[in-house]
């Protein structure tokens, strides 16, 4: 069904009508008795999977179910950093496909995702860090992906707030820079994909918790929900932190543990940092368009589904950030929040088949979920449509754990604490 395009003209027209005539961005239909594909989880990855299923593979008989509201989980709870500076070839290929797609996403979706490629500066504080950074820099350049090594003076030029004096508690020895990386508007990505998928005929069904699966002879026949049974030829699990809960209902386990990651945001101040600064000590930092400083942290130390983190962690991250950017010391914090991360044992995603026939899983994105939304959905839709993994996701199957072919991205992922 055609939707009016968003443009400067539609904005002007609606402004003149006192914004009374905007139409809904997507429908809220009752579920049909049967769909070709059911996607569980209306977050970034679920919605992008639905969009590319419809657009690239012509499969529009698709429903996206969510326990809560659309885009209310981790896609609304991250620090919006988009980058592809990973270490191993498999990861670089997947994340860089995604990063490339981000650059054209607003036009593709006719929805302003406010993607701002302002560069990712990853600081180096010691010689081990220097070796890790150089190794990653070389891996990226060999893969043809942009990365630069910076001297402390070049860091100072890009981010004058960073203290590069040799006597600092965490002296800055340099940094890596990925200029194509940046930040985006978190909600816009979910809403943009939802609106574009809806226009192609995909049903968004909110407040429809999946309570179980109907499995006959090892093959999935549909899902039991709070709104009744819905039949399906294929079921794709994309519920992020709650994937273990759904896997248990389907009768299998995953190499995943759910932990909290926190973020917090300061009061708005005048623009003074126009790049993303990350440090392995750890903390990450960017300044939003509204002027707030957005602080990212590392994962919390124990399993949790609580969506809130611990205070000692906030204290630690604040101290880390102030020691490297002393100018932040008098900032007041406005709010903090947490999300439930599905962290796999090698901190790389799990995409592919499950032990149940007709059921696919896309999970384990952990600390890398937001940046990978376009690429993940694009590759995963290929798997569902053709029952064959796309080359990009082939190394990320669940079978890699028995094979021992792990893709250990602890250093590059942002989950700075080696997980257990």
């Amino acid at each position, binding site marked *: 069904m055609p939707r009016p395009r968003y443009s400067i003209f539609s904005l002007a027209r609606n402004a003149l009508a006192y914004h009374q005539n905007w139409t809904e961005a997507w429908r809220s239909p009752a579920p049909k008795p049967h769909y070709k594909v059911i996607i569980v989880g209306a977050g970034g990855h679920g919605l992008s999977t639905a969009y590319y299923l419809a657009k690239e593979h012509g499969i529009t008989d698709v429903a996206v179910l969510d326990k809560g509201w659309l885009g209310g989980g981790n896609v609304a709870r991250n620090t919006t950093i988009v980058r592809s500076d990973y270490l191993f070839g498999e990861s670089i290929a997947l994340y860089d496909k995604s990063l490339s797609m981000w650059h054209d996403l607003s036009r593709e979706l006719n929805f302003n995702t406010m993607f701002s490629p302002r560069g990712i500066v990853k600081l180096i504080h010691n010689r081990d860090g220097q070796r890790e950074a150089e190794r990653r820099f070389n891996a990226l350049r060999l893969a043809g992906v942009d990365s630069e090594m910076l001297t402390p003076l070049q860091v100072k030029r890009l981010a004058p707030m960073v203290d590069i004096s040799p006597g600092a508690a965490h002296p800055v020895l340099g940094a890596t820079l990925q200029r194509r990386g940046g930040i985006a508007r978190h909600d816009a990505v979910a809403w943009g994909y939802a609106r574009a998928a809806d226009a192609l005929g995909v049903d968004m069904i909110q407040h429809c918790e999946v309570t179980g699966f109907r499995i006959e002879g090892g093959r999935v026949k549909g899902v039991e929900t709070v709104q009744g049974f819905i039949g399906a030829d294929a079921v794709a699990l994309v519920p992020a932190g709650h994937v273990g809960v759904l896997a248990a209902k389907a009768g299998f386990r995953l190499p995943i*543990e759910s932990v909290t990651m926190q973020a917090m945001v300061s009061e708005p101040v005048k623009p003074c940092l126009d790049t993303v600064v990350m440090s392995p000590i750890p903390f990450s930092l960017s300044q939003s368009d509204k002027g707030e400083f957005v602080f990212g942290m590392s994962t919390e130390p124990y399993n949790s*589904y609580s969506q809130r983190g611990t205070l000692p962690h906030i204290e630690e991250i604040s101290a880390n950030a102030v020691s490297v950017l002393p100018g932040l010391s008098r900032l007041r914090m406005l709010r903090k929040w947490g999300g439930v991360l599905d962290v796999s044992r090698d901190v790389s995603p799990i995409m592919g088949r499950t032990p149940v026939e007709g059921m696919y899983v896309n999970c384990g994105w952990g600390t890398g979920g937001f940046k990978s939304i376009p690429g993940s959905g694009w590759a995963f839709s290929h798997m569902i449509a053709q029952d064959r993994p796309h080359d990009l996701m082939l190394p990320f199957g669940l079978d890699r754990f028995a094979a021992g072919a792990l893709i250990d991205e602890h250093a590059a992922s942002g989950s700075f604490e080696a997980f257990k």
Partner: protein
Amino acid sequence: MLLIECPFCGPRAEVEFRCSGEGHIARPETPENISDEAWADYVYMRTNPKGLHFERWMHQHGCRRWFCVARDTVTHKIRAIYKLGEAKPALDEPKTEGEGA
């Protein structure tokens, strides 16, 4: 912050401890005779429950001894603390309605 009752030192703050994940995972007796899948199940697969979780903890900045904790992964409420080698205590599964996607 959690107040954790170390079975050896008494109540201490959460920051003194390290959580080491799911407990009661028995190492296969004869690893050389089991399949790769069974070994991967032992090494990597986890139950990851929403609700009651049986874990191993260590008093890292104290006596550095290991013990077991039964904890709710939604409310973080500690239900029981017991020593390594003891059986899982019989506890009711909590009601965990609420947040989450």
